[in-house]
């Protein structure tokens, strides 16, 4: 049974339900126990479970990650929250050198490593170069990490629950711009299956692949493409690693055209990975070259018109799709990009 919640409410509900069922879960990070904590996504959990289980941390991202690893090694299920995922760069030693390799390099004598890290991408009003990157592709590079990038309220809840039940290190990348998006969410604590991509909209003419906020942009683009009679299929990657290659390639083979859109730079990024998949596995079915869309190849600028030009959005997906399908833009009406975000941070 479901009802409509925002992405942020879904995150909150998933966390509360997971904590109700498992006393070993605790949450830490800068400001997680403030009354307005983490844009409201931990407020209810603080109210319900108190500061014994949700507690603030000094600004010490690397040691805090190591501390969570140490607690996880002793049977706890720590959840670390980074209000901006860019701060996670300071924790890469612990994340990548230790957590990701833990099970493999300690072999049969390894204790389980159930570490969960939430990192929020700060796309909003002029977040600038150090508050707007999305680390899903970077983190996805390393064997041993599971990397999630939920695009819908249902997955925001379901992936939170799934991550807090798993016995391996998991990173959840959340885009701040998704927080006010609404959608149906199960009342029950149902985990989203990890490692699966989802077809969010079926179509036969072109495949648009993305994750996180770009799925929402792609759905808008797919709607607009109907004006030219183009039926676009939208595939939500959902889990960046391990990647559901079969669902993605099945869609590419079906439509013969691919636009990959990412909330990241194209170079060495997830979009390049998906494009490579198409080249390696679907070349014979491709009717047109693969198209990648990502950030402009520069650090994120702050000033409004520059920022507007920096991000890929529904209209850029629509235009790229029209070109791949050999259709002109003449007579098209382009919807605005997804914008439920009202600021100020």
């Amino acid at each position, binding site marked *: 049974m479901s009802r409509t919640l925002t992405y942020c409410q879904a995150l909150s509900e998933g966390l509360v339900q997971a904590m109700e069922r498992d006393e070993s879960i605790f949450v830490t990070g800068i400001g997680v126990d403030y009354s307005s904590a983490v844009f409201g996504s931990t407020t209810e959990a603080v109210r319900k479970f108190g500061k014994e289980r949700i507690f603030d941390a*000094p600004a010490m991202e690397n*040691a805090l990650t*190591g501390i969570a690893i*140490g*607690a996880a090694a002793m049977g706890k299920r*720590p959840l670390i929250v980074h209000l901006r995922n860019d701060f996670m760069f300071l924790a890469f030693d612990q994340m990548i050198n230790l957590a990701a390799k833990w099970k493999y390099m300690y*072999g*049969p*004598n390894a204790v389980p490593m159930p570490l969960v890290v939430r990192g929020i991408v700060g796309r909003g009003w002029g977040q600038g170069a150090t508050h707007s990157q999305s680390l899903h592709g970077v983190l996805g590079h390393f064997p041993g990490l599971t990397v999630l990038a939920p695009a819908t309220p249902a997955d925001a809840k379901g992936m939170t629950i799934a991550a807090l039940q798993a016995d391996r290190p998991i990173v959840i990348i959340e885009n701040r711009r998704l927080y006010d998006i609404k959608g149906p969410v199960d009342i029950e604590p149902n985990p989203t299956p990890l490692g699966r991509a989802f077809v969010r909209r079926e179509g036969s003419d072109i495949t648009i692949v993305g994750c996180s906020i770009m799925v929402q942009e792609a759905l808008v683009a797919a709607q607009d493409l109907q004006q030219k009679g183009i039926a676009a299929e939208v595939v939500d990657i959902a889990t960046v690693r*391990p990647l559901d290659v079969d669902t993605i390639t099945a869609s590419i083979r079906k439509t013969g055209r691919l636009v990959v859109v990412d909330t990241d730079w194209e170079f060495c990024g997830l979009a390049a990975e998906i494009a490579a998949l198409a080249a390696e596995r679907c070349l014979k079915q491709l009717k047109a070259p693969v198209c990648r869309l990502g950030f402009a190849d520069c650090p994120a600028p702050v000033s409004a018109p520059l920022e507007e030009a920096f991000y890929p959005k529904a209209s850029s997906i629509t235009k790229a799709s029209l070109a791949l399908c050999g259709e002109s833009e003449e007579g098209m009406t382009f919807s605005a990009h997804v914008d439920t975000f009202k600021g100020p941070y």
Partner: protein
Amino acid sequence: MSNLLDPTEEKRLLRSMLRIRRAEEIIAHHYKTEQQMRTPTHFGIGQEAVAVGVCGALQQDDVIFSHHRCHTHYLAKGGDLAGLVAELYGRATGCSGGRGGSVHLADRKVGVVATSAILGETVPVAVGSALAFKMDGGKRVAVTFFGDAVFEEGVIYESLNYAAVNGLPVLFCCENNLYSTETPLSLRRKSGSEFIDRVRSFGVPGEVIDGNDVGVVREAVANAVARLRRGEGPAYIECLTYRWREHVGPLFDYEANRTYRTRDELEDWMRRDPLAVSKKRLMNASALGDAEYEAWLADIDAEVASAIEAAKAAPWPEVRLILEGVL
């Protein structure tokens, strides 16, 4: 020289040091002559009193975390010698299944949770285990071993602060052997800027002790651990010691013509051999005779030889399983 511990206890500690010494010497010999152990190996020969003195004051369910020079800690805490040797030979029967090598040892049964080759990496992990122990309201403690170079990493300060603020049962054990790879402490620490003063500035009490006297280490750690178990927060112990061999590998530095430290300096420290210190104390107290010591040596050498033989006969990891165990 400190007073004799209970002779039975001191004999136990000396035998443990001898076992680690002989294991490492024999491993180093094979490493050098066979070229079969293909894992960068950092020998702790000369530093045995720290590992044995610290672990001798712990319970089996207490946990330790270590660094690249970790064989001493692994064996002192009860890690499996045959598992260590097989790991160095890269065999499936190694304690880490041949996936970790010399610097990634673990033995969950005896509380060796993790060791890592990145400086300071396991320091906060020990703090996190102590956090879990505090949350559970128990009496277990966590120990992190690290070298003097960790004071050049930021993570030690983050960790000391967190442990102090939260009153966690973690012992920070610095093995100060005066060198970071081949760079002496004098080039890395301003004169008069002692590590212990930095540690105390976080509100963590501690002391600097003779790390080559197992009795001194054992006693200091016992006192510190008692404090941890009473819930009085973290402690720091800095053990002054010296590694006899090169930073990584089986040779003495002079054998490799390295000049960053002198042979005279090495020989000064070898005269302070932790095994000799303990042995002399026991013999002076008539608690140990040559015959008993020689019998230990024979038993230990046989055990190490058998571990090496078993490792060489053990199967390699199956290549078809290379991708197993990532998640």
